[in-house]
């Protein structure tokens, strides 16, 4: 294909958008809405996972042993804890180490008085879990061991984060699927209307021997441009709103600022992914309508 033909096809593609600007605008608006919801759901999911991962970096569970449990028996509990399936690693802390944590708060005199037999604390273990979603089962298994007094309870945070992630993933997926179908419908109708409005030109093109591919290219360009423009606008909206929303959320939950991704980290992947999704949806919608149209009513030339 010659360069002038390529230029001509691009010109035709943009002419389609201009001539059919109201439907093109409707497609862009719907696609932007779909992409903003999709992108937001994806970013929430990514950030929740990031928070969960950062939680995993800390010792997630503290196992308090009974104060009367001897140091020897306390140490013997280590391998038993390690044998529990979801326990990735453990760290032993003696009752003296625990008391030291409170030295400042207690003051030197009280701290000295609590040394030795006066130490009310028991020995403890800090555990790291493999899968936070199995938090409850793991805690129950730990509590069945002899010598365990209590287990620190961070199940609320873990549970909420797991549920949030599940919600964002599942609900987001459904919303995206429904919107994707709606968008496909709108875009395929836009292209169908464009093709219908140009049926006259298409019949002339067919009569002079234009191939279906040649006829389709301007419409493919139209659908691609609609998808690309929607992708770029949607990512611009998301990127510009990301930092304010993140700061606002950090005001409620402090750890969000340190555990979530910054705008600098997300802008490029967001822009690229959104643009690609926009193009893909645009193309798919365009191709569906074109194949149907050119094989049926768009095949007529003499038309009588």
């Amino acid at each position, binding site marked *: 294909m010659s360069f002038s033909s390529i230029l001509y096809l691009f010109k035709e593609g943009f002419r389609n958008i201009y001539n059919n600007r109201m439907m093109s605008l409707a497609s862009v608006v719907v696609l932007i809405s779909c992409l903003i919801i999709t992108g937001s759901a994806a970013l929430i999911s990514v950030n929740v996972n990031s928070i969960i991962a950062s939680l995993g970096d800390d010792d997630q569970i503290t196992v308090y042993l009974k104060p009367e449990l001897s140091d020897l028996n306390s140490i013997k509990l280590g391998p038993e804890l390690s044998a529990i399936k979801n326990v990735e690693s453990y760290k032993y802390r003696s009752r003296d180490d625990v008391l030291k944590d409170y030295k400042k708060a207690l003051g030197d005199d009280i701290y000295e008085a609590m040394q030795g037999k006066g130490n009310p604390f028991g020995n403890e273990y800090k555990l790291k879990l493999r899968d936070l979603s199995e938090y409850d089962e793991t805690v129950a298994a730990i509590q069945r061991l002899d010598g365990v007094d209590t287990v620190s309870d961070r199940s609320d945070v873990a549970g909420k984060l797991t549920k949030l992630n599940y919600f964002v993933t599942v609900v987001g997926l459904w919303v995206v699927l429904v919107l994707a179908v709606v968008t496909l419908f709108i875009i395929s109708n836009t292209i169908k209307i464009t093709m219908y409005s140009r049926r006259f030109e298409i019949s002339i093109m067919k009569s002079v*021997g234009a191939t279906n591919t040649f006829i389709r290219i301007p419409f493919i360009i139209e659908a691609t441009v609609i998808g690309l423009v929607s992708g770029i606008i949607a990512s611009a909206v998301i990127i510009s709103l990301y930092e304010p929303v993140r700061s606002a959320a950090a005001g409620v939950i402090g750890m969000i600022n340190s555990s979530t991704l910054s705008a600098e980290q997300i802008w490029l992947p967001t822009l690229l992914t959104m643009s690609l999704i926009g193009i893909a949806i645009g193309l798919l919608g365009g191709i569906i309508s074109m194949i149907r149209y050119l094989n049926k009513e768009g095949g007529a030339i003499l038309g009588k």
Partner: protein
Amino acid sequence: MIHLENVSKVYPNGTEALKNITLDISKGEFVFIVGPSGAGKSTFLKLLIREEKASFGKISVNGRDLMTIRKGRIPYLRRTMGIVFQDFRLIDKMNVFDNVAFAMRAIGEPEKAVRKRVAAVLKIVGLEGTENRRPRELSGGEQQRVSLARALVNKPEILIADEPTGNIDPELSFEIMKMLVAINRRGTTVIVVTHEHELVRTFGGRVIRIAEGELDSDHFIATRYNPEKSSPEQAGDEDQTTEPSPSSDDTDPSSEAANIADIDLSEESTAGSDGGQPEAAEPNEATAEDIDEDIEIKDGDGQ
């Protein structure tokens, strides 16, 4: 060039549009296809351009078997043809130049060739200087000449004109027909579907009549048209009542038509090898009066 053997076309709704048609059209022939409305003329054309596939029989055009041709090859078959429509089918958003160029651009011709050949073909049809005008600014005759230019610009071997004079005044019809004859003299096979018996009587040639889907007759009648004379009155039929072209036409198509055979279409000549009489099939001889009866056109049925 065109060969049909026992061709029938039955549409999915059961309508038998063509029945057992057998005919040959040779390279360089000028053929009228006549017959009443609903006779099967349009279906005949649709089979030739492979808009429809024949239900039975054998059909080949320009050496291509239309019964077995792959879908992807149909556009290339159509590139060997030019089609002139009754309703001109010009794109009003485009000027004259772009309307004609559209046919070349649609098959991916380079812009340099487009510019060169469109200018040449507009000269052939006598529309030089109208390049920047919109179709709506032109008279019916001029519009049909733009349509003709578009059909010619890809240098077709066969020119199919589907009621080319159906939407224009009788006097302009005569001019369009003269152009078609001149194009035929360049070696292009011309097939004209028409209802207008006066034109058939004047220009003569091979006349194929289709009635109720069947090949009713296939005659050759002598022409009354003398290309050396440029007006209908001078064309050999003293009874003609047509008037000269209206003044709305910027150029005189009569003289342009007379000169078509002398003009090169493009950078490379597409004229027939000898430009003389075609190597016609062997239709029966008939008189103009016979054909008048054959065409069976009632007054007012100008569709």
